[in-house]
């Protein structure tokens, strides 16, 4: 009897420790806590021209404070825009309807996240609401393309200036 008691005690504490470790791994090392214990949420959508490499699960922040997460990303084939479903914490329920949603990059090469900037309206976003003012992701390739285009354009200008200025043409020759 005595022996079986210590045996069961040992087995029990081992299993408990194991499940505590599993619980720690799923809730503490990943960004998602248990949905059962999560705070109440509400959903709003925002349409963007280009979301870059925004991922599901990316944070939504206001003034740098995380207020929610990206829950779903879809493509609207009627107006050719990306539809992003944001799941916001119901604690932050006083976000004006004319707020602005922009996609930012964390650090120089970090992941994308959505930043909300409060507008001035007296009505607040509710569940199934929509954010109308959006600003697309900053795509590095586009910027490089623009810089290169400007660069070659100004170079071409310098090489062949307007023919109305014969002196300058002489100089470049």
């Amino acid at each position: 009897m005595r022996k079986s008691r210590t045996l069961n005690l040992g087995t029990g504490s081992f299993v408990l420790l194991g499940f505590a470790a599993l619980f720690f791994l799923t809730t503490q090392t990943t960004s998602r806590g248990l949905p059962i214990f999560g705070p109440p949420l509400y959903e709003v959508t925002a349409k963007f021209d280009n979301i870059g490499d925004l991922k599901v699960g990316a944070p939504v922040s206001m003034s740098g404070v995380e207020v929610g997460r990206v829950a779903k990303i879809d493509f609207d084939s009627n107006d050719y825009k990306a539809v992003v479903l944001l799941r916001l914490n119901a604690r932050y329920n006083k976000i004006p309807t004319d707020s602005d949603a922009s996609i930012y990059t964390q650090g120089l090469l970090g992941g994308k996240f959505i930043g909300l900037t409060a507008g001035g309206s007296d009505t607040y976003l509710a569940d199934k609401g929509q954010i109308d003012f959006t600003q697309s992701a900053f795509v590095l390739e586009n910027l490089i393309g623009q810089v290169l285009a400007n660069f070659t354009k100004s170079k071409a200008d310098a090489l062949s200036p307007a023919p109305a200025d014969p002196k300058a043409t002489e100089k470049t020759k």
Partner: protein
Amino acid sequence: MIGELWESFTDALEDLGSVVHFLFRLVVNTPRVLLRFDLISQQVFNSGALSLIIIMLSGLFVGMVLGLQGFQLLQRFGSAESLGTAATIGLVKELGPVVTALLFAGRAGTALASELGLMRATDQLSAMEMMAVDPIQRVVVPRFLGGVIAMPLLAAIFSVIGIYGAQLVGVQIMGVDAGSFWSQMRHAVSLTDVTEGIAKSFAFGVACSLIAVYQGYYATPTAEGVGRATTSTVVTSAVVILFLDYLITAAFL
């Protein structure tokens, strides 16, 4: 020469077939054994709780080494704050399940194989059969299930201790910021990483326990045979673990 090769090939195939058959017998008998909860609980204690010390110690040192090496490497790129991410992903997905399974094969697998082998050599299994007690149900299945239950729990404990080991070296000794260590980890580690680790440790648990009880149950009933069964448990387990590791990693990509 060709004939010998062919023979060893068919022998290996025959072994594989009989392992699969044995697994099938274990699975068929499992529902009846689940009612004998005390037997399983005792085996969880034998292969799980008794392996705890070696798992925890190894986890701590593996985590500390990971912290040290990861810090040295990441510092070159000026991103020592990603140490938490690197260590956690490494531990949860690879090192946790694989190292735990290798240690488990060495600690619990050999114990199972030699115990069953000795039972075979001293005719205890035959005696049970004489008394109309099915040794598969009474002896083999509880040991198998005990190993299957214990292995994922041990791997999870290994990973958690390893993460704290990496944190100990990275944050306390090398001076990485504790906040960014944890927050970058939480941001980068996804639930599928953890699921992959759990799936791996479960598969390794089934493989290790199956190999151990198979080798023990079918050991040649001599002192030499028991020794050989124990050795080949460790060797086969190690190869099978690493092979399964590749398969499961590829499946999750």
